[in-house]
């Protein structure tokens, strides 16, 4: 899937760069708006399907929710801090960080704000996933199991989960899934909030 994603974006970029199709460019805002709504509906279905998550959270105690909360705060503060260095407005760097590693959704949500920021959100969150996959085993071994969920962000429930599960234990894998679930729900809420600050 990730290969197809890169292919779709690259194909689009090449088409846009060489041909600038006027019809699509002038209607892209409305196409993306409609598509985004459809996509968010699917996101909702995926979230709703996981009934067990609520039971698991009760089982483990609500303090488990501190894990996604800290990852949200760390990601947003981290990106804002980086934003000061590379001279980006707080709302823009914060919105990119609020993508929490979910590059497709965060980039899509920012497309109609500005193509440049959307590109940055896409690249940042792709890099985050790649770096995450690279350092998760290291973090699990040398820093701690719980910390190894942090680099994954929203991907802690899908693409990064097998690696976290392999690098840690079954309990951490469950925490990872719950965390990824909550972070995935948070992305479509946090990105528009951050950009409008």
């Amino acid at each position, binding site marked *: 899937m990730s290969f197809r994603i890169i292919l779709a974006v690259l194909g689009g970029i*090449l088409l846009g760069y060489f041909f600038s199709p006027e019809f699509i460019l002038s209607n892209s805002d409305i196409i993306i708006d409609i598509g985004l709504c459809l996509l968010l509906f699917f996101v909702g279905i995926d979230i709703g399907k996981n009934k067990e998550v609520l039971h698991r959270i009760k089982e483990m105690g609500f303090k488990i929710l501190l894990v996604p909360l800290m*990852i949200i705060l760390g990601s947003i503060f981290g990106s804002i801090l980086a934003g000061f260095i590379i001279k980006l407005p707080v709302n823009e760097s914060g919105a990119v960080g609020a993508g929490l590693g979910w590059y497709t959704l965060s980039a899509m949500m920012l497309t109609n704000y500005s193509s440049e920021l959307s590109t940055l959100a896409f690249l940042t969150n792709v890099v985050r996933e790649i770096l995450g996959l690279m350092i998760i085993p290291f973090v699990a071994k040398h820093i701690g199991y719980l910390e190894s969920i942090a680099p994954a962000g929203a991907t802690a429930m899908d693409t990064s989960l097998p690696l976290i599960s392999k690098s840690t234990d079954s309990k951490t894998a469950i925490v990872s899934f719950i965390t990824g679930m909550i972070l995935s729900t948070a992305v479509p809420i946090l990105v528009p909030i951050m950009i409008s600050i």
Partner: protein
Amino acid sequence: MGLRLIMYLVIIFLGGIVGYKRLVHKNIMGKMNLIQSICLLFLLFIMGIKIGGNEDVTSSFFRLGFQAIIISIFSIALSILFIMIIKKFMINDGEKEEGKNEF
């Protein structure tokens, strides 16, 4: 943006109800995954066209890539740091309850 956010939340909530109540039959659910993928890929394609057609973006692609690396490193580092801070508190809690460190 406020109105937009409410609209997003309502849409996610509606989707959540559909998913939670299993309103969609399993067979259709499988097809919906396909629809979801196609929808996503199509949107990314459109997004790509917008990016490629914007000279400001294409001329600063390497700068954006560099910025992306900086932002992602800071995001990851601070997330790990923040988890380290609360972990102490979570483990202390766990030790009292179960007498061992589970993480």
